[in-house]
C-alpha cells in the first residue's frame, strides 16, 4: 500500500500556495478602466524588466506596441481602447483557464488511454492500471474547476469567449448564424453532459477494477471491457465537441475540421507522459516492483509515436490553411506567426524535434532519466500548445508568460500532484486478480 510522503504533500501544498498568490497578483494588477489599461501599455517596458527567457524576445515587440499609442494617440478610437482593456483584463482569466484546462486534459487523456487498454484487453499494461486510475481521479476537481470558469464566462465575468457578448453578436451576422449552437445555456448544458459522462465512466470503471481484485470470477473484468468499449464511442464524439466549445470557440469565426483530433493528440501524449513520469517516480520510491524497463520502453514508444501523430495533425491543419490562403482561415496562423513567434515555433521544436531525436533510439527509451527529461519538455510543449490556442484570441499581442501564467501552472500542478497521489494511496498499487496480470508481470521485449 502506497502512502503519500510528507515531502511530496508539503511540496504540492507549497506549489498551490505560491500559485494562488501568483493568480491573485494577476487579478489584482489587471486594469479596471480604459485609462489604466493605456497607462499599463505605455509603461510596459518598466513593468517587465525581469531576466526571463521570453522577456528578451518579447521586449522589442513590446517596444513597438508601447510606442504606437503615443505616435498616433489621437486617432485611436474608443472601441480600440475598450478592446485593449478587455485584452488586459482577460490575461489573468486566460492564464487561469489555460492551466486549468491543461491539467484537466492530462487526466482526460489518461482516461482515454486507460479505456483503450481495457477495450483492447492489452496484456502489457494491467500493472499500470492503478497509476492510470490515480491520474484520472483528477477529472473530478479539474473538471469542476474548468466548468466553473466556463460558467463565470457565461455570467460575463470575463471576455474569454467573444460570442457570449450580446453586443458583439448583434453586430455580427456570422455569430448570429451560429447562435443556435453557440449560446450560453446550451454551451453549459453540453459541458455538463461531457463532464458527467467522463466522470461516470471513470468512477464506474474504477469501482469495477477494484471489485475485480476481490471477486472470485471475471464478471467485473468483462463488464469493464464492455463499458470501456462503449465509453470510447462516447468519448470520441464528446472530446471533439468539447474542443470546439472550449477552445475553438474563443475565435468563433475560425474553424478547422480536424481540431478535435488535434486537441486529442495533445491530451493523449501529455497523459501518456504523465503515466510514465508517475510510474518512474513510484518505482524510484520502491513501489511497483514488477514494472520493468520494458513497460517504460512501451510508454516511451507511445510518447514518441503520439508526438509524431500530434505533429502530423498540426501540420495537416497548417499546410491546408497556409496553401489555400483564404483570408478568414489564414488569419489564425498570421496572428500566431506575427505576435506569437517564439511560443508558436518553440512549441514545434519541443513537441516534435525534441522527442523525435531524443526518443528515436530504442535503448534510450529504457533509460529512466532520459524518459523523464523528454517528458518534461513534452509537457511544457503541450502547455504552450494550449497557450497558443487560447491566448491569441483572448489576450492578443498583450500576451506574456509572467506571474499570472506561471502562478496558474504552479497552482494546478500542486493540486494535480496532491489529488493524484492521494488517490494512489487509496488502493493497492498492483491489481491482483486481473486476468492479464501474469502476462503483464512477465512482459518482456
Amino acid at each position, binding site marked *: 500500500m502506497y502512502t503519500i510522503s510528507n515531502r511530496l504533500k508539503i511540496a504540492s501544498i507549497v506549489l498551490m500556495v505560491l500559485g494562488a498568490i501568483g493568480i491573485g497578483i494577476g487579478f489584482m494588477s489587471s486594469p479596471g478602466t480604459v485609462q489604466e489599461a493605456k497607462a499599463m501599455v505605455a509603461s510596459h517596458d518598466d513593468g517587465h524588466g525581469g531576466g526571463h527567457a521570453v522577456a528578451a524576445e518579447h521586449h522589442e515587440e513590446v517596444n513597438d506596441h508601447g510606442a504606437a499609442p503615443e505616435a498616433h494617440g489621437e486617432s485611436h478610437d474608443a472601441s480600440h481602447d475598450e478592446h485593449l482593456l478587455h485584452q488586459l483584463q482577460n490575461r489573468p482569466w486566460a492564464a487561469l483557464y489555460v492551466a486549468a484546462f491543461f491539467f484537466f486534459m492530462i487526466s482526460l487523456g489518461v482516461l482515454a488511454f486507460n479505456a483503450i487498454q481495457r477495450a483492447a484487453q492489452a496484456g502489457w499494461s494491467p500493472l499500470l492500471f492503478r497509476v492510470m486510475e490515480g491520474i484520472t481521479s483528477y477529472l473530478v476537481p479539474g473538471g469542476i474547476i474548468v466548468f466553473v470558469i466556463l460558467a463565470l464566462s457565461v455570467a460575463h465575468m470575463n471576455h474569454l469567449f467573444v460570442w457570449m457578448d450580446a453586443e458583439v453578436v448583434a453586430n455580427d451576422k456570422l455569430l448570429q448564424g451560429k447562435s443556435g449552437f453557440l449560446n450560453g445555456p446550451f454551451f453549459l448544458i453540453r459541458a455538463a453532459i461531457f463532464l458527467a459522462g467522463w466522470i461516470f465512466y471513470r468512477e464506474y470503471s474504477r469501482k469495477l477494477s477494484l471489485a475485480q481484485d476481490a471477486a472470485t470470477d471475471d464478471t467485473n473484468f468483462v463488464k469493464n471491457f464492455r463499458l470501456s468499449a462503449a465509453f470510447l464511442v462516447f468519448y470520441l464524439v464528446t472530446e471533439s465537441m468539447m474542443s470546439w466549445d472550449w477552445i475553438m470557440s474563443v475565435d468563433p469565426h475560425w474553424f478547422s475540421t480536424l481540431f478535435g483530433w488535434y486537441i486529442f493528440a495533445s491530451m493523449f501524449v501529455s497523459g501518456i507522459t504523465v503515466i510514465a513520469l508517475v510510474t518512474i517516480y513510484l518505482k524510484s520510491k520502491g513501489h511497483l516492483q514488477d514494472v520493468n524497463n520494458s513497460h517504460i520502453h512501451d510508454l516511451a514508444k507511445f510518447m514518441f509515436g503520439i508526438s509524431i501523430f500530434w505533429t502530423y495533425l498540426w*501540420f495537416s491543419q*497548417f*499546410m491546408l490553411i497556409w*496553401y*489555400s490562403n483564404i483570408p478568414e482561415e489564414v488569419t489564425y496562423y498570421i496572428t500566431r506567426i506575427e505576435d506569437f513567434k517564439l511560443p508558436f515555433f518553440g512549441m514545434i521544436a519541443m513537441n516534435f524535434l525534441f522527442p523525435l531525436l531524443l526518443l528515436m533510439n*530504442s535503448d534510450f527509451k529504457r533509460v529512466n532519466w532520459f524518459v523523464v527529461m523528454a517528458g518534461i519538455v513534452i509537457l511544457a510543449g503541450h502547455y504552450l500548445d494550449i497557450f497558443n490556442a487560447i491566448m491569441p484570441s483572448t489576450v492578443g499581442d498583450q500576451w506574456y508568460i509572467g506571474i499570472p501564467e506561471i502562478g496558474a501552472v504552479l497552482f494546478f500542478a500542486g493540486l494535480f500532484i496532491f489529488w493524484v497521489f492521494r488517490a494512489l494511496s487509496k488502493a493497492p498499487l498492483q491489481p491482483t486478480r486481473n486476468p492479464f496480470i501474469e502476462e503483464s508481470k512477465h512482459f518482456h521485449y
Partner: protein
Amino acid sequence: MASKVIHALYTDDDVLMHAVKKVKEAKHHIEEVYCPFPVHGLDRAMGLAPTRIAITAFIYGCIGLAVATTMMNFIMIEDWPQDIGGKPSFSYLENMPAFVPIMFELTVFFAAHLMVITFYMRSKLWPFKEAENPDKRTTDDHFLMEIEIHNNEDELWQLLAETGAVEINISEK
C-alpha cells in the same frame, strides 16, 4: 575441408528456446538455427550480436530527405519556378510547407526500400538463390539446430537428446 555437423530437430519453439539455452550453457557454439517463423528472443539466447539495421535505416532516411530536398529545389525553384496558389516559388524555405509531404514520403521510401535491400544482401538472399536449409521440414513445422562437431559427437548427441530433440542426424557439410 568438409566438416561434420550435428542436426537436432524440434517441434516446438519453447522446447527449442530451452535447448538453445542449455547448449549455450554447455559452451558449444551453435552454427545456425532454422525456423519456420521468427522466434522471439532467439537471437539473444543464441548470443548473436544486436542488429545494426536500425542505424542503416536512419542513414537511408537522411539520404531520402536530402534527395527530396535537392530534387524539389531543382524542379520547383531553380529549373522552372511556378506560381501555384499565389505562392511565388523563388525561395525553397518560404515554400517549404508544400514540400514537406514529399520530403516525408521520400524519407520513408528510402529508409524502407534500402533497408530491405540491405537485409537481403546481408542475409545473402537474391532471386533464384538455392535454399540453404538442410531439411525441408524447417519450412513447415520443425526447428533445426546445427552444431559443428569437433571430436565430441557422443557428448553432443547425449546433450541434444536430453533437450527434447525429436530427431538427431549427423551429416557432412
